[in-house]
Every structure is written in structure tokens, then in C-alpha cells.
């Protein structure tokens, strides 16, 4: 077993964090889409939460897959 197999990259944790943030924000955005709250923010029709949630999810996903433990860097 080589030394590299014990190595967990910091970017994996950052990717995981982005995935969690992405899921939470996407979830909140979808919830807002179907049950909008009374106090809407400006330009809420653009559904920024959904887009940002997706973006964070994609970036986090790339990092998690690229730096996942056991993958040869």
C-alpha cells in the first residue's frame, strides 16, 4: 500500500462543504418556488437560490470527484 492512499486532500473537504451548502440552498430555493414567503426579496422571480444552489453543487461535485480519497491525483 503506497503512502498516497492514506492521504485525504483538503480540497475533498472543501468540495464536500460546497455540496452540503449547494443542497441546502437548492432545497431552500425549490421550497420558495412552490411556497413563496410573504416577504419576498428583490428580483425573487429570478430564483437566485436555485441557480446558486446548483452552481455550488456542481463545483462541489467536481472537487469531491476530483479529490476523493483513494483517487490517484
Amino acid at each position, binding site marked *: 500500500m503506497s503512502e498516497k492512499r492514506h492521504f485525504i486532500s483538503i480540497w475533498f473537504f472543501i468540495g464536500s462543504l460546497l455540496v452540503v*451548502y449547494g443542497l*441546502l440552498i437548492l432545497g431552500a430555493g425549490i*421550497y420558495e418556488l412552490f411556497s413563496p*414567503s410573504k416577504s*419576498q*426579496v428583490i428580483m425573487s422571480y429570478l430564483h437566485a*437560490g436555485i441557480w446558486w444552489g446548483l452552481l455550488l453543487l456542481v463545483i462541489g461535485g467536481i472537487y469531491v470527484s476530483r479529490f476523493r480519497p483513494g483517487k490517484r491525483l
Partner: protein
Amino acid sequence: MTAKDLRSAKLGTVIGAFFKMMVPLIVILPGLLGRAVLPFELVSEPVAQQTGAHSYNEVLPLMLVRYCGPGLLGLGVTALIAGFMSGMAGNVSAFATVWTYDIYQPLIRKQATDAHYVRMGRWCTLLGVFVSIGTAYLVMSFRSIIDYAQVVFVFFIVPMFGTVVLGMLWKRTTPAAGFWGLLAGILASFFLWLWVRLDPSAVRFVALSADAKLGMADNIYRAMWSLVANVVVTVVVTLFTKPKPAHELKGLVYGLTEIPSEGHFPIFKRPITWAAAVGIGFVVLNIIFW
């Protein structure tokens, strides 16, 4: 120190320089955007305290509340708090380390147990947190946060720049000269600031112009005087003190240090290319905003 090779170390500095040049933009841009899109007028901190209106310094939370719904608002607040925490944690731990290792251990209590120094470091951390809280109240007496940041930078970073550059490039520079030069730069900066604070009309002497008005430009002129004081005192003290032998300066001074090869890389991966881009950016920004 932690870079894997010389090229990474150089590139790290160059990338840092890019972001450093963007600081005014990053700090000022939200305020400008807020001025353009918020339905009310933002005012300065003293006016805000008197009238209850919102000040420029509140622009980020105001914009977050205005544009970010549930979820995104949490991310924005988390980012703000993370920024505060990382800045404060870094400064407080640096304060505790400098006091404990560089002042307390060598000068005050040389032979104590490790547990004693750890305890001292912890108390310093606690003190640092309280000092940070006090500083927040100090900032309220400044025109804006960027003004305060520039005042502090000019107190410490500018003289430090002169000392580091001279010490790194001129092997004749002595430790005493470094100390007195740094002290002269800090004191020059502090007294010029105090002078203008007590007598605002003195800004015309600091900024070398009868038309000079109080504003952030006087910080830049103070930086110039601080650097001049630092360099002049460092050079003069150096010429009157005994230099360190060359073998003690190996690895510290440019001319006496063997520079390892960076390796062969295509032109766009070489630090010198990006350093040149930073240099050009620096000149262009200065021409635009002179």
C-alpha cells in the same frame, strides 16, 4: 516557507499581489453598488449615529437582506462571519505568539516550563480578543472602515516594507538600523496622523498642497513620509554601526544566497511573466486613479 518549490513560492506572492491590488475595488464596490440600487441614501458613520439612518459600513448586510432569500442569505452571513473569524483568529494568534515567543520568553522570563508559556499564550489570546472588541469601537470614530484600514497599514506595513526590502537587498544593513528605521517610520506615521487629527488644516503640509483636503489621499502622503523616515534612518544608522559578517547573512540577503533553479516551464507558467503583468497592472491603475 511552506511552498513546495521556489516557483510555487514566487507564484504565491504574485497571486497575492493581484488580490492585494483588488482590495480597494473589493472594499469600495459594494458601497458604490449600494449607492446605486438602494432606495435610500447612505450616510457617513457619525451622521448615521445622530440620525439613525444607515451608514456606508452597513452596505453588505443591507444588500444581503435585499437580494438574498432564505438559504442564500445564510451563505452570505456565513461568508461574512467566516471572514471576520479568520481575520481575527489570525491576528489574535499572531499577537499571542509574538508576545510569548519573541518578547516574553527571550526578554522577561527566559527559563520557564512549556506549560507556563502555553498559559501565557492563552491569556494573550483572551486579551487579544478583548483588544479586538475595543478596536471595533475605535473604528467607529473613523470616517469609514477603509480609512481606518489605511491608517493602520500606514502605521505598520509601510515602514515594514522599507525595512524588509533594505534588509533583503542590502547586505550592509545592520539589526540596529532595522529596529530604529522601523521605529522612525512608525513614529513618523503616527505623529503625522495625530497632527492632522488635532489640526485638520495641517493636511496641506502632509500632502504638500495648499488645496489638499481631508480624505484618504492624506493616508497615501503619510505613507510616503513614513517610508522616507524609515529608509533615511535605516541608511544613516547602518552607516554608523558595524555590519554583520557575510557568512551570518547567508540565506537572508539576496546577494549572499544561492537561488535554486525554478525549473524549465513555458513562458505563461513562469513567475516572471505574471510578476510583469502585476507590475503593468500596478502602473496602469496608478495612471488611471492618480
